[in-house]
């Protein structure tokens, strides 16, 4: 839980991110409309309302791909961290673009008639057994509902009151929604487009997302495969002091799938849970900044000794007992209650900074 809530915790980075995002979206839409109004020949072009619907729909799909690539990309390289940091704004922008697409479709395809627009678009026909008769609009609507819930609960307030686990599960539904979107396109507009361009681009998109996730998954598996067995040991040998750099954290994987972040700071070593209390970011890949272990995802901070965020923040992590034998770092794998202070293990010969 945070001290209080703001609509957006603005900083320079988020502003630059949003400007770039707005430019990208505008550039895409302008290009699409300009090309659409010139093809196949002036006076015989796709109608403006259909053009707008398609420009927004395809932009939404492009943005969705970007959103889904950022997660695994950030696991593969820390260079992608700036893209992850403000992904929330990308997500909300994506939702608004998709919503506009749906509103135009509903208005033009469902409006001006003798039935309620929603019912005529979503319940106008229902040959679920055939590709040409499958009501693809229903798939888009279902995906949009999921995206709505995700966009509506993207604020940290929701993370706090729903709990990280529920929130994360809710936001994992993005993969279900992604599948619905792909089916929405494949059983919808793709059925009446003779050009192979659209189908090929869609397949390329699915393959790219798959590749990024598989690559990130392999990296995670490698990390897990070096896990340390801690089943019946009270103290486990996790590292050599010489391998730990000052003001840096490292991840220790236990066979129990638990992960611990080892922090070397101020001539001592502390151990806290590797899972950030905010969104589960990997604290062991973070650094010590201003005396606090800082999460590489969104910059949440914790004091290494007690796992507590400095006031006025109230996040807390589980801590672990640490001791040094010779040059080996030993950790007791039994977690202490979040926020429990543990005396950091002092490295022989090192000096405490004043």
């Amino acid at each position, binding site marked *: *839980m*945070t*001290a*209080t*809530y*703001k*609509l957006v915790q603005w900083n320079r980075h988020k502003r630059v991110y949003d400007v770039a995002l707005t430019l990208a979206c505008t550039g895409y839409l302008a290009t699409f409309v300009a090309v659409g109004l010139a093809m196949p020949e002036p006076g015989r072009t796709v109608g403006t309302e259909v053009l707008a619907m398609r420009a927004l729909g395809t932009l939404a799909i492009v943005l969705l791909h970007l959103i889904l690539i950022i997660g695994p990309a950030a696991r593969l390289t820390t260079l992608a961290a700036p893209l992850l940091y403000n992904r929330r704004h990308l997500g909300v922008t994506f939702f608004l673009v998709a919503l506009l697409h749906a509103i135009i479709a509903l208005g033009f395809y469902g409006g001006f008639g003798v039935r309620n627009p*929603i*019912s005529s678009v*979503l*319940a*106008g*026909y*229902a040959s679920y057994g055939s590709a040409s008769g499958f*009501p693809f609009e*229903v798939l888009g609507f279902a995906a949009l509902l999921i995206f*709505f*819930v995700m*966009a*509506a*609960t993207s*604020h940290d*307030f*929701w993370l*706090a*009151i*729903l709990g990280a686990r*529920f929130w994360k599960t809710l936001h994992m539904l993005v993969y279900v929604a992604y599948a619905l979107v792909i089916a929405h396109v494949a059983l919808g507009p793709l059925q009446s487009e003779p050009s192979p361009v659209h189908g090929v681009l869609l397949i390329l998109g699915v393959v790219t997302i798959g590749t990024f996730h598989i690559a990130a998954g392999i990296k995670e598996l490698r990390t897990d495969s070096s896990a340390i067995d801690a089943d019946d040991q009270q103290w486990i040998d996790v590292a050599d002091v010489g391998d730990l750099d000052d003001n840096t954290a490292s991840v220790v994987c236990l066979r129990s799938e638990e992960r611990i972040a080892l922090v070397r700071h101020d001539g001592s070593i502390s151990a806290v849970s590797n899972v950030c209390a905010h969104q589960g970011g990997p604290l062991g890949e973070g650094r010590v900044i201003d005396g606090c272990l800082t999460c590489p995802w969104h910059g949440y901070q914790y004091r290494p000794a007690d796992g507590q965020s400095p006031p006025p923040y109230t996040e807390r992590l589980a801590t672990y007992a640490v001791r040094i034998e010779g040059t080996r770092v030993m950790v007791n794998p039994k977690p202490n209650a979040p926020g429990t202070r543990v005396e950091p293990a002092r490295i022989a010969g090192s000096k405490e900074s004043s």
Partner: protein
Amino acid sequence: MHTMETVLLAFAVYATIGLMFAIAFVIRGAAHIDAAAQSAPLRVRLAFAPGALALWPVLGIKWARAGKAAP
């Protein structure tokens, strides 16, 4: 066609209840469940309304529990 109409009607009912719940949630519920929301300005709490509309059954339970826990 008939099935889909029924599903849509169910959605409409769910969203209508959600809308009423969201208003109450913005005014009182949010601060009741999460102390940090007490000091949040109205426009921030208004941003919680769409989420409350969507997840009202979950929030309703949390609100009721928070009410029991309070003295």
